[in-house]
């Protein structure tokens, strides 16, 4: 098992803030809209240095989404910022009609996704957002794993013409991916080559998968670990290549089992290469109040949950 050294832990939302600030300097068409959560979204630096391109919209997410769509008509590249819940479920119809169906170049940037939002509880902990966004034609869906990757993804999506959903979170996680990485939309990242099982993880679960890989190595299991930062378009070639080698698959995500990464992989495998799959995800339940760590444990999203899933899926392997 490879080592993944890191010097500090940081939140992915700060990666977004850093990437957006960078874009402010390099791309004059980038504008930012925020629904009264500038601090939470780490958009302060952009707001301070590019005030004429920062639009405070107040607590009015529907207006924000349609307005962003309108701004693209003048050639702007709007980045909207609010919590993942208010970036998706609250404004699904605005996104569907004004952004996705209209093919508008809006970047929907969503923080505090999943149970790691913590104490605020289930009203704010969206676990269905990847599914909702992935169902929309024309939408690209990205869920990076750490600060550096979120920053790189933020910069990369400005160059991509078309609507994008970029999901990130609140807690600090090890910042282990390279600071100088080139983020390629739709291209899975091989983290550890292995022979016994393929683990496909996204977002915060990528680090958990690395921790699981170490535990598995102690048990003599050689896990292949791949970071699926882009849920749509899914890197089918990378997933199939790995699955065909190891003959069994585990998916891991901070999301409902319905509609998320595991679902996407299940569809692919069912069509192309039926192989056993176990999903580490929230099983048809809302979250609740608690610390992020307590919630990750209670909802079965820890490294030991991935290890257990690997053991189950390897027992099913033919």
């Amino acid at each position: 098992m490879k080592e993944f050294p890191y010097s500090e832990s940081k939140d992915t939302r700060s990666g977004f803030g850093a990437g957006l600030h960078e874009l402010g300097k390099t791309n004059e068409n980038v504008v930012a809209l925020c629904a009264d959560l500038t601090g939470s979204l780490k958009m302060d630096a952009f707001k301070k240095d590019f005030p004429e391109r920062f639009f405070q919209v107040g607590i009015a997410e529907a207006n924000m989404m349609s307005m962003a769509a309108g701004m693209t008509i003048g050639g702007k590249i709007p980045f909207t910022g609010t919590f993942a819940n208010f970036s998706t479920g609250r404004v699904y119809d605005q996104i569907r009609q004004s952004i996705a169906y209209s093919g508008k170049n809006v970047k929907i940037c969503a923080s505090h996704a999943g149970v790691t939002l913590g104490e605020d509880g289930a009203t704010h902990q969206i676990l269905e957002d990847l599914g909702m966004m992935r169902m929309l034609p024309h939408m690209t869906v990205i869920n990076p794993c750490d600060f550096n990757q979120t920053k790189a993804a933020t910069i990369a999506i400005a160059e991509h013409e078309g609507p994008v959903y970029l999901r990130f979170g609140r807690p600090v996680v090890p910042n282990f991916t390279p600071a100088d990485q080139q983020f390629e939309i739709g291209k899975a990242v091989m983290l550890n080559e292995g022979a016994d099982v393929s683990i496909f993880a996204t977002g915060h679960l990528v680090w958990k998968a690395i921790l699981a890989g170490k535990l598995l190595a102690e048990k003599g299991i050689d896990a292949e670990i791949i970071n699926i930062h882009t849920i749509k378009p899914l890197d089918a070639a990378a997933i199939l290549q790995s699955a065909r080698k190891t003959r069994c698959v585990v998916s891991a995500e901070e999301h409902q089992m319905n509609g998320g990464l595991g679902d996407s992989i299940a569809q692919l495998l069912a069509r192309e290469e039926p192989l056993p799959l176990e999903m580490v995800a929230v099983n048809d339940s809302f979250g609740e109040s608690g610390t992020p760590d307590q919630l990750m444990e209670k909802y079965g999203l820890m490294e030991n949950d991935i290890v257990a899933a690997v053991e189950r899926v390897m027992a099913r392997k033919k």
Partner: protein
Amino acid sequence: MSQSSSANVQTETPPVQQERSIAELKQIASQVRRDIVRMVHAVNSGHPGGSLGCTDLLVALYFRIMKHNPDFSMEGHNEDLFFLSNGHISPVFYSVLARSGYFPVSELATFRKLNSRLQGHPATEEGLPGVRIASGSLGQGLSVAVGAAQAKKLNKDDRTVYVLMGDGELNEGQVWEAALYAPHRQVDNLIAIVDRNGQQIDGSTKEIMNLGSLRAKFEAFGWRVLETDGNDLEKLIASLEEARQLLGQGQPVMVLMDTQMGAGVDFMMGSHKWHGVAPNDEQLEKALQQLLVEEASDY
């Protein structure tokens, strides 16, 4: 003639419209109304009532008021832009676009049919020139227009953004989010128009969701408000010209336009019953007899 001062916008200025007389505009409006009733009759579906009621407005905008380029570009730099928020009145939008030269008039025959660019509600998916965003699910167009108007300001493009909404549409909460935002941000290159026909699907707006005084409401939100007769071309044009004079003063402008649903066809007028119902053969003939044009050029 104002030259674009924007550094990042390099487009040709669209041709200035020739000034058409009221008599000419009336002829065009009659032809557009003929198109509307024929389009909805042909597919036995669509929304004639609101389309007929807003015909004079769209004719005034596209044939007199707006500077626009039928050689369509999505971004529309240095052009006036129009957004149709109440997308169900697509027949009038399509007819006016076609007759302004955005696409062949003959294409009106494909309205609501399979593989057409003329979807039931306006869309960009099929690439129909003149349509800049999908609409149909109500309440989104004012926000879109506010966004487009702000993009124009960033681009130092001094043209105007127009948006039309239905009065029933004002039931939607999002409209009021945008209504609060636009004066706060001083979006003063925007003219919003409400088609106040007093009807929505289930009955009169008074009965379904009473809007009360829209003038008082929008003024309280910080808009400049004008009221006009949306079926009198002379008054309508005068009001739109007055609205333009009010731009650039820190406030968005709202034109409350009284119309008759079904205007131009006596048996369709003033009732919500023709909101989403097409005429039969006999009713079509009767309607066309009332919509006379010196030289009809039906598609």
